[in-house]
């Protein structure tokens, strides 16, 4: 048993790091889809924008990273607000129209980013003080990924408390359950809608800033991230923070421990897991219970 653990220990830790990265990205997609019924296929593009911001602003210092995070959060919030503005008129026309619109935005922004940054994968290193490796049971593990686990755990906790334990979260959930009732109470529904989308988008961009040294900026990264986020949302269940966390951690382990233990099935593990979850629990592992 010890031998097994020792051999796969690093993969388990890395699965947690990868899972938390997926959570930071996917939770926004899940909340926006689950609560506001907006299918945002531009979600991967938000991550890519964050990764490019990290590339542009990282100067090797910790301040560079913090500056990039602040810029990323701002860009994300504005992007989220813009996406709300653009998708609201389509709210009654269903997911297909939203998909076409947001996918179109993806193509345009991806071309703009390629024009600005070129068609190659760009070097994005962690701040100097967070480079290097630490020793985990005799295996080298990147220090930055350990720090990332800490930061992302903090973010996950904050998002969970905000949506599932605070009065603000209660208001958001109430808006989802019964818009007319909340409007009758004198609350401006539009503020709630814009707020949720802006926060979800800001998280995706922040995920891009923090994730750049792990999943660096370059053409095609937006698609990879979008597909992974969709898988996390489908596995975890729509519209709940806990669902996104469970889905992301599970997919993180599938992508590291699963690949380490069953390498010959690596190409099928991701979608195999999704299929298995869908067969057993069609609404995902932890559905929100609202509108599901």
């Amino acid at each position, binding site marked *: 048993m010890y031998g097994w653990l020792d*051999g*796969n220990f*690093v*993969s388990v830790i*890395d699965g947690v790091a*990868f899972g938390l990265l997926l959570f930071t990205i996917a939770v926004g997609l899940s909340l926006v889809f689950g609560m506001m019924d907006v*299918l945002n*296929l531009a979600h991967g593009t938000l991550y890519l924008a964050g990764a490019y911001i990290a590339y542009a602003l990282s100067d090797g210092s910790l301040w560079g990273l913090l500056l990039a995070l602040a810029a990323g959060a701002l860009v994300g919030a504005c992007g989220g607000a813009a996406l709300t503005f653009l998708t609201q008129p389509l709210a009654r026309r269903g*997911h*297909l129209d939203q*998909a*076409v619109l947001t*996918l*179109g935005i993806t*193509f345009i922004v991806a071309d703009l980013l390629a024009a600005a940054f*070129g*068609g*190659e*994968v*760009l*070097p994005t*290193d962690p701040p100097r003080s967070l480079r290097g*490796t630490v020793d985990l049971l005799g*295996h*080298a*593990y*990147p220090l*930055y*990924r350990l720090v990332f686990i800490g930061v992302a755990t903090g973010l996950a906790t904050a998002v969970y408390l905000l949506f599932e334990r605070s009065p603000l979260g209660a208001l958001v959930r109430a808006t989802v359950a019964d818009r007319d009732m909340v409007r009758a109470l004198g609350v401006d529904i539009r503020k709630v809608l814009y707020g949720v989308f802006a926060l979800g988008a800001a998280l995706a961009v922040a995920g891009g800033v923090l994730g750049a040294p*792990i*999943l*660096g900026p*370059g*053409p*095609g*990264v937006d698609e*990879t991230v979008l*597909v992974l986020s*969709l*898988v996390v949302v*489908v596995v975890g269940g729509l519209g709940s923070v806990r669902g996104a966390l469970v889905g992301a951690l599970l997919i993180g382990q599938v*992508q*590291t*421990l699963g*690949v*380490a233990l069953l*390498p010959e099935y*690596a*190409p099928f593990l*991701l*979608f195999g897991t*999704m*299929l298995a979850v869908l067969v057993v629990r069609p609404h995902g592992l932890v559905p929100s219970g609202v509108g599901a």
Partner: protein
Amino acid sequence: MAGRIRPIGLIAATTATLFLATACGGASLGTGEGDKQNGPLKIGLLVPQSGTYKALGDDMKQGFELYVQRHGGRLGGREVEIVVADEGESADSGKAAAEKLVKQDHVLAVSGVVSSATINGVKDLFESAKVPLVGSNASPTTLTGTKYIWRTSYVNDEPGKALGKYVAEKAGGPVFLIAAGYQAGKDEVEGFKSTFLPAGGKIAGEEVYTPFPATKNFQPYLAQIERSGAKSVFCFYAGGAAVDFVKQYRDFGLAGKIPLYAPGFLTEGGVLKGQGEAAEGILTALNYGADLDNAANKQFAPAYTAAYGSAPTTYAMASWDAAQVLDKAIKSAGSTVTSETVNAAIAAVGDIDSPRGTWHFNAGGTPVQPWYLREVKQGANTVSSELVRLGG
């Protein structure tokens, strides 16, 4: 890709976008001027001007244009006009662009072609139109038995072949084999094994093909390498995956402990910049290195660096050579320069004095040429020794 949502509308919209893009791209290029005996000769360049392979296409275009420019805008003493067509990303876009060059622009010959899918797709077009294609990159192992298709690059499995014996002798223990899980990756690994195993090389565990392009996190594979007790690693990655793999190889502490060998693409051109110092010490096999010490390269490499601000890649060098092949062939075709006489002249073109060293075409239309071992030192590929001559 079950996670993706693709209703009919999406497909329709995408198709329409792509159609418009191709139509505009085609319309903006060149004007159809009939061939006059004394007017400029039209040479087609079929290279990606958009999409994932644009950087490669730029290298190839620059190498070809530099040769023509340094020879007074002439090939074989005749003034030439270069008509560029966008290969794009897919076999379909490449085929459309090739059709345009051959049937609409009536070019004398074509050079370029990045992707194996494109060259397979346009093979019949060039054979039946009897227009020579002097390709300067794509060269799948399956492309055989053609009369009008030449490659100044190499056959896909040769970089692996060039390394096999050397690694078997140097490794001092089992070698781990890992590659991107698509055809080129398999070709390279098979090429490597074809010289590695007969030389007494041992493989550590099973060879691994990582899902392509989905794999972004290589940690589980790197853990496998560490556990396998391998003394060296042979890998095949290119483009974005090459950057990810090399950086994570360093991040997880394998760089400097287990030597990394690969076909040259792992560190060629733009990816090397992306890898930064993580690429330091990586050993690759390729038919060219910008610091090669020979007379032809002393002409080529400094001129290229001065013109474009970066050291030439094998893609640029092979395109320079494609222009050189056409130069010699057009000259020896004499007074009647047609696609067919030029093609016949290419077959008899003989030795090419190239920046990579002297080479000539074999019966299959690919080079018999030297291969070099290169090491990344201070952010540049440095040739350390000649490995072997392949292609014969």
